């Protein structure tokens, strides 16, 4: 049977079916891509990306909205199953489900920062995160956006300690001068707490989509209850060198503001 026509259908439909020629198959692939709103077939670099936290989170959302098609999905996702079944509790929160109901598109973004930079002594423990929001399809508006980072339980010297975790938007960068930052969200947590932390970065994401040159990334800092700045790793926050399924990422929920009209041929 061809890629598009199931051989079992051939007998019942009363239509004469045949295998598609290569050029016809390519043409059909092009048409389906066009329906999906894609100019070409994406070619992701997935050395370890398939098992990262972002695809797993998105799969969680997908399963939430695709209960009807559950049977179809299960067969295809054997490769994800072993990892996915170990995810407990689910990655997506109730708030995410609420955002999801209102969204036409959800997109996760991988952190593009590969190496730690040297910051000023005052901010030497800050961690930097960058996301590429420049390729959002036209007519999509951000309705909600979160930065998500996983926190492990800390059972060392900080056992009975609380941490103040702060997320900043980088607004200005000058060589040799202090970086300009804007505080977006904070969270106070016990050292023993464990799970995904969600920080609201909706306004910042909107700015980055509308004006990509303002996208200078985010910075994260951790302070103890007596105001000492510590390395986020000491507070149990998982960074680039942590497990793939606990990598920090960003997720944005979009609503269509313009109707996508396919070009007439």
């Amino acid at each position, binding site marked *: 049977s061809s*890629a*598009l*026509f*199931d051989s079992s*259908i051939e007998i019942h*439909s*009363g*239509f004469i079916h045949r295998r598609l020629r290569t050029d016809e198959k390519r043409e059909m*692939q092009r048409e*389906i891509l066009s*329906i*999906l*709103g894609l100019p070409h*077939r*994406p*070619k*992701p*670099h*997935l050395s370890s*990306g398939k098992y990262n936290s*972002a*695809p797993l989170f*998105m*799969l969680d*959302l*997908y399963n939430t*909205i*695709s209960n009807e*098609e559950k049977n*179809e*999905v299960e*067969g*295809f*996702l054997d490769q*994800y199953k072993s990892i996915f079944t170990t995810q407990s509790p689910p990655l997506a929160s109730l708030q995410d489900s609420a955002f999801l109901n209102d*969204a*036409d*598109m*959800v*997109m*996760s*973004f*991988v952190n593009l920062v590969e190496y730690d930079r040297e910051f000023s002594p005052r901010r030497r423990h800050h961690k930097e995160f960058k996301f*590429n929001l420049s*390729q959002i399809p036209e007519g999509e508006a951000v309705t909600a956006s979160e930065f998500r980072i996983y926190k492990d339980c800390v059972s060392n010297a900080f056992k009975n300690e609380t941490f103040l975790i702060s997320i900043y938007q980088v607004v200005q960068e000058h060589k040799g001068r202090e970086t300009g930052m804007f505080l977006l969200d904070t969270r106070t947590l016990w050292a023993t707490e464990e799970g995904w932390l969600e920080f609201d970065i909706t306004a910042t994401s909107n700015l980055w989509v509308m004006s990509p040159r303002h996208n200078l990334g985010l910075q994260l800092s951790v302070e103890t209850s007596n105001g000492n700045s510590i390395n986020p790793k000491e507070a149990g926050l998982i960074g680039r060198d942590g497990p793939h399924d606990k990598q920090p990422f960003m997720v944005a929920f979009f609503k269509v503001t313009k109707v996508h009209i396919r070009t007439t041929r």
Partner: protein
Amino acid sequence: SAPNKRRQQSRNRSAQPQDMPRNPNMSGYNSSDQKTACKKHELYVSFGQLGWQDWIIAPEGYAANYCAGECSFPLNAHMNATNHAIVQTLVHLMNPENVPKPCCAPTKLNAISVLYFDDNSNVILKKYKNMVVRACGCH
């Protein structure tokens, strides 16, 4: 206006293309009518067989389906026939050379969600409206 004989005939034709009669003898349609009547046909678009499993995470494919078959008189025996389809049939009967029969087309469409990677290995979950034919009818 249709002659009485024809009206009587149309009353006997009670089969609906969407639901095949359990007992073929109960239907006014003969076997060729059943084969050609406007109805929903199954067609599965497999992303896996298209060789797209490296970038489409889910679903494996979708039951796209399609509508095919003849929309011929009497249309009122057909489920979901529009008023326009009836008018179109009448005009076709009066001028078969120039006016085609009404079209067998979707009357009810459903959405699907697709989860896929983009070029930057970001993941997109998008809802696509009107992707799956749930019901067909004459337009």
